[in-house]
């Protein structure tokens, strides 16, 4: 039982990351019926930007090299203890790190849509898919060439000094896991409210259901699609930065497996369905944790994908995917 609960905690943490990435896949698919292969690279890019920002505030090497040359850097050096050791500073730093990573990656997502996908919108769907694959390879190799193949994530002192949270005396939750799980829940909740309750969110849903009709309502389809390509990558970037903080490393090809798992999560939940992606993300995370804990870590992916296949046999549209019969 203790073992089970411990695995559950691990599964929920990783599942939160999968859910955040899966949303990007499912949102783009919902609107453009296209699998954005480059989305895994949004996760990776977000991780690298998060690394850069965290370094700016907390790491010594970067600042040490150029600190005295630039007034801004010496300012950062003086604020560094505040950001890395105090609770308030840590929270502010986290907001800045994640905010920057999300916004920059979101903008990158919009750029990719504008230049790699939009010109192909009226071409056969395969064209955009190939363009997405190309974008994915380009981004990986760009980072590999100009940034580096891997970066070791610094751990802020404040976080390192926190004790693991002890529940019932036998389950231990690492602080970073707690942060990841709670942040993921908050983001998922906010996104759900946004899409279901706000005017802009409803415009997104309308666009996903019928682009022509949405245009006739006065919705600017291109803006809505651009917005989708901002939100998805922004959430992916948050996941990428969390990934770096949890595992202590980011690599140029780190998007591959989380990307496949998150895509699987989106399909499992019913691709195109936001709540499905969230549910799918957590399910895959838990399934993985259970499989590696109770069976073997080497059979983890076999079991995960076997369950996926089983579910899709009985519910081809995914768990929450509904097939509304349209009447003509």
């Amino acid at each position, binding site marked *: 039982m203790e073992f089970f609960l411990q695995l559950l905690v691990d599964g929920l943490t990783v599942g939160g990351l999968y859910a955040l990435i899966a949303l990007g896949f499912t949102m783009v698919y919902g609107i453009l019926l296209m699998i954005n292969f480059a989305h895994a690279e949004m996760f990776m890019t977000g991780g690298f930007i998060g690394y850069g920002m965290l370094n700016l505030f907390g790491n010594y090497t970067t600042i040490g090299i150029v600190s005295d040359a630039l007034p801004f850097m010496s300012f950062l050096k003086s604020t560094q203890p505040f950001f890395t050791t105090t609770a308030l500073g840590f929270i502010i730093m986290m907001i800045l790190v994640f905010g920057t990573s999300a916004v920059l990656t979101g903008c990158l997502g919009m750029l990719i849509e504008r230049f790699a996908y939009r010109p192909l919108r009226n071409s056969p769907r395969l064209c955009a898919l190939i363009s997405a694959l190309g974008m994915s390879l380009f981004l990986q190799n760009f980072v590999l060439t100009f940034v580096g193949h891997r970066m070791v994530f610094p751990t802020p002192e404040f976080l390192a000094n926190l004790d693991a949270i002890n529940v019932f005396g036998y389950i231990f939750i690492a602080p970073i896991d707690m942060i990841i799980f709670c942040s993921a829940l908050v983001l998922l909740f906010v996104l759900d409210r946004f899409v279901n309750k706000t*005017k802009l969110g*409803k*415009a997104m*849903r*309308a666009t996903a*259901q*019928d682009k*022509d*009709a*949405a*245009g*006739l*309502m*006065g*919705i*600017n*389809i291109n803006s809505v699609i651009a917005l989708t390509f901002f939100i998805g990558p922004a959430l992916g970037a948050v996941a990428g930065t969390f990934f770096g903080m949890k595992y202590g490393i980011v690599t140029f090809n780190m998007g591959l497996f989380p990307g496949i798992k998150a895509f699987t999560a989106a399909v499992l939940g019913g691709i195109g369905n936001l709540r499905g992606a969230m549910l799918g993300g957590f399910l895959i995370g838990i399934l993985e944790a259970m499989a590696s804990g109770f069976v073997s870590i080497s059979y983890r992916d076999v079991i995960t994908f076997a369950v996926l296949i089983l579910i899709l046999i009985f519910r081809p549209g995914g768990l929450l995917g*509904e097939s*509304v*019969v*349209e*009447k*003509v």
Partner: protein
Amino acid sequence: MLLSVKDLHTSYGKIRAIRGISFDVAEGEIVTLIGANGAGKSTTLRTLSGLETPHQGTITFEGEDITGMKPHDITKKSLIQVPEGRRVFPQMSVRENLDMGAFLRNDKDGIAEDFEKVMAFFPRLEERINQKAGTLSGGEQQMLAMGRALMARPKLLTLDEPSMGLAPVIIEVIFDIICKLNDEGITILLIEQNAMLALGISDRGYVLETGHIKLSGTGDELLSNEDVRKSYLGED
């Protein structure tokens, strides 16, 4: 003229769907375009709404050239279309669909007022206000599509085959409402295969054939025209 179309050409790839059509709609009129399948009726409306881009010709609405504008910009001008096949948002509730109709408006009171009006026109929608639009019957979806268009407060309402696939009783209701809307000052441009019904309520009509306008006249003139009677009313 509220709407004036001059020498409009639109193609789908190499297929020239409309080849130089010209027509006018004056304020307060009901104008009908009739024609067989593939005559270019829907293409004409889609081009008016910006869903297709013409490669020649001009569309003038309220004295302004709107040729080649995007659909959302044309909607801003209060030229509103009820598309062929209703095209309601199937996974949204009836209320959400109506809200989408008022997407560009910010006048809360005006929207509420129009909402009441739509409810009065279509009591059936009020009964199903929280139901998903995809679960409505064809007739109800047509009512919803029209209600949604009304929420935009149209100056010119274009309707693409509102009677398609509906029971005669429902068609009567729909056409009644089209007349009522016209009485309230909304100009109507109608496309119909049901020529008898459409010309009966129209001030003027145009007959489209393979992308050209073949005939035009008042509704009664066309109804008594021999060619029209033969081709579209099924008389020998």
